[in-house]
C-alpha cells in the first residue's frame, strides 16, 4: 500500500524550509488547510515561518502550476509541488514558452489518486484525522466516523484513467514512484452519448449548461493551457465575445475557450472542478480530445508535445471530408 500524501507532509515542509532558507527559491507554491478537511487551498509562502502552514493531504487536488505565471518577471526561482497531472500542466506552460523551467524548483508528488473532497465531505465523517491507502480503497478516519472509500467511487474521475501517476522531471521527488497504471481505460462514453442525441436535444443540453455561466473566468484562470499574456476575452478591440451574458455570447465564450485549448488541454479537469455553476466543461474538452484521437491518430493529445495537433498536419493520412 503506497504512502498517502500526508505521509510526505513533513518531508515537504523540511524541503521547503531548506530551499527558502538557503535562498534557492524565493517562494513556494503548495497547499494549506481550507475551510474544512476536504477543501485544501493553494498557499504561497515566501518566508520560512510560513512553512508550517503548508499541508499535504489526500484531498490536494488543486493544480497549482498557473500561479507560476505571477512570477515569470521576477528574479529567482519559485518552488512548486506537482502531481503527475500537474506536471503535464507545467509542461504546457513550458512548451508555450510562458514559464522557464530553469526558474522553477519542482517538488514531485507521486500520486495514486486524489480523493474527491466534494463527495467525501458529504459523508459526514467530520474532521479528518487520518487517511490510509488500502489498495483499492482509502480508509478515511474522521472525528465523527470512519469509512473505507473504494477508489473507483471516491477518486476524481481523471485519477481513474490517469497514466501519469509520477510527475516527470521533478527536481525533488517526495517518497518513491508509485505504480503507473490506469485504474480503468479512458472513457468517452458520456461524450458518445451526447453525440448521439438529436441536434435539438443536444442544443437544449448545452443551452441549459451555458445559461448558468456567470462569466467569472475561473475556468480560464485555473487552466494551464489558458496562459495568454492578454486573454482574447479581455481585449476590447476587436471584441470577439461581448460582455453581456446573452446566451449567444456565453456560447461564443465557451466555444472559443474550448477551441483555444483544443489539442492543448492536459486533461487536468480543473476548469470543471472550479466552476461555481457546475458547468460540465470537460465535456467540451473531452469531445475535442476524442476527436483529436480519432481524427489525427494522436493517442495522447493531453501530453504536451513539441508541436501540437493543430500546429501540424499529415497530407494523406488526415481524413478528407471536404471534397
Amino acid at each position, binding site marked *: 500500500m503506497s504512502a498517502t500524501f500526508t505521509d510526505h507532509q513533513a518531508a515537504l515542509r523540511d524541503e521547503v524550509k531548506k530551499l527558502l532558507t538557503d535562498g534557492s527559491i524565493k517562494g513556494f507554491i503548495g497547499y494549506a488547510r481550507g475551510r474544512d478537511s476536504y477543501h485544501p487551498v493553494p498557499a504561497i509562502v515566501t518566508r520560512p515561518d510560513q512553512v508550517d502552514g503548508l499541508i499535504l493531504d489526500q484531498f490536494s487536488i488543486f493544480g497549482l502550476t498557473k500561479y507560476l505565471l505571477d512570477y515569470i518577471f521576477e528574479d529567482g526561482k519559485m518552488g512548486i509541488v506537482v502531481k503527475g497531472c500537474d506536471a503535464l500542466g507545467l509542461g504546457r506552460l513550458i512548451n508555450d514558452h510562458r514559464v522557464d523551467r530553469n526558474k522553477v524548483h519542482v517538488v514531485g508528488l507521486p500520486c495514486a489518486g486524489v480523493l474527491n473532497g466534494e463527495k467525501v465531505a458529504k459523508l459526514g465523517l467530520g474532521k479528518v484525522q487520518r487517511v490510509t491507502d488500502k489498495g483499492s480503497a482509502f480508509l478515511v478516519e474522521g472525528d465523527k466516523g470512519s469509512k473505507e472509500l473504494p477508489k473507483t467511487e471516491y477518486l476524481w474521475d481523471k485519477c481513474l484513467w490517469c497514466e501519469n501517476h509520477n510527475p516527470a522531471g521533478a527536481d525533488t521527488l517526495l517518497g518513491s514512484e508509485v505504480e503507473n497504471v490506469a485504474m480503468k481505460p479512458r472513457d468517452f462514453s458520456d461524450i458518445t452519448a451526447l453525440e448521439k442525441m438529436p441536434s435539438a436535444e443536444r442544443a437544449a443540453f448545452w443551452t441549459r449548461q451555458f445559461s448558468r455561466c456567470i462569466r*467569472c473566468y475561473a475556468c480560464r484562470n485555473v487552466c494551464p493551457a489558458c496562459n495568454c499574456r492578454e486573454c482574447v476575452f*479581455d481585449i476590447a478591440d476587436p471584441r470577439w465575445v461581448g460582455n453581456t451574458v446573452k446566451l449567444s455570447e456565453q456560447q461564443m465564450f465557451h466555444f472559443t475557450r474550448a477551441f483555444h485549448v483544443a489539442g492543448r488541454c492536459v486533461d487536468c479537469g480543473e476548469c470543471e472542478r472550479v466552476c461555481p455553476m457546475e458547468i460540465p466543461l470537460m465535456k467540451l474538452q473531452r469531445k475535442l480530445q476524442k476527436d483529436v484521437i480519432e481524427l489525427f491518430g494522436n493517442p495522447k493529445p493531453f501530453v504536451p508535445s513539441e508541436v501540437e495537433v493543430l500546429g501540424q498536419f499529415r497530407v494523406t493520412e488526415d481524413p478528407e471530408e471536404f471534397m
Partner: protein
Amino acid sequence: MLLTITADNLKSLLDKLARDSLLVAPVLEDGVTRLKPVKAASEIALDYSNTATSIKDFLFPQSEDLLRFVTDGTLSIEEIKPERAQVAFGIRPCDLASVALMDKVLTTGEYADTHYQARRKNTVLIGLACESPADTCFCTSYGYNPGHSAGADVMLYKDGDQYLAEALSDKGREVVGGPGEGLFKPADEAAGQAVKKAYAEKEVPFGKEVDVEGIDQLLDNFFDDQYWDDVSKKCLGCGTCTYVCPTCHCFLLTDEARGGEGLRFRCWDSCMFANYTKMAGGHNPRPSKKERVRQRFMHKLNYYPHRYHSYLCTGCGRCVAMCPVGLHIAGVIKDVKGVKAHA
C-alpha cells in the same frame, strides 16, 4: 399580523403568481440550485440552504439594456426602461439583508440608479427563513439571523408541514390579500412569535467563528499591511466571489452596435479583474492582485461602512463555499483580527 399557509396552499399561491407575473424561485438543475423564472410551483426546489446566485440577478441583472441608439448620419437615443413586475420567492434572510445594502448605493445620493429603482419597486420579495444554515453561513456575525425578515414583502417560516407567514409591506399585503386570498389563515400570535423566535435564535455555527466586531476600525490603518501581499498571492483573479456575492454591485457600460444601430448595456464587472481599473492609455492604478484583493475587502469592511454605516456583507457564505482558492471574507476577517492581535 401573523398568518399560516399550508404547503399545498403555498403551491397554489405560487402557481397563481407564476401565471400572473414573472415568478422567480429556486430551481434545482444539474446539481445547482439557483433562482430562475418558473412557470409552475412544481419546478421549485425547496431543499436548499441557499441558492448558488442571489436575488441580485433579478434586481441588478448581470447585463441589462440601458439604451438603444441609432447612428446613421444623425444620432438618436432611446432610453430603455426595465421590464415587467416580478415576484421572487424563497429569498433567504441574508439576501433580503443584501437588498438593503444595495439600496444604499444605488438609490441614495445625488444620483439614483433608475433601473434598479424600478426593479425594486416592481419586485415582491417573498422571504423564506433558514431551516438549516449551511456550514459556510455566518449571517449572525453581522447581526442578521436565520429568521431575519427585514427587506421581505412577505416572510415565510417553515413550521412543520405548514408555513408561518407575515406580510411586511404594502406589496406583501397585496400578495396576501390578492392572489393569496383565501389561502392564508390567521396564525396563533403567540405560537407564531415562538416560531419566529426559534428561527431568530437558530444556531449558525460558522457565525460563531467569525467575529466581525470592530473590523472596520481595525482596517483603518491596515492599508499598507504586509497581509495584503501574502493573502492576495493565492487569488486566482476570477470573478466568482464578486458575481455570487449578493452585495457586490460593480458594473461597466458596454456598447454593441450592428450597423448604425446598437445597444448600451450595463454589465457586472469585478474588482478582481485586472482590466477593471485599466485606463485607456494602459496605466492601471491597481496593477496587481494585491491592490485588487485589498480593494475588495477594504470596500466591504471599511470603505462602505465609512460611507453607509454598515458592512457590505451579509454572511451568506457564497464566497466561502465557492472561492476556488479559499480566499473569502470570513477568512480575511479572522486573519486581520489575528494579525492585529499579534501586532
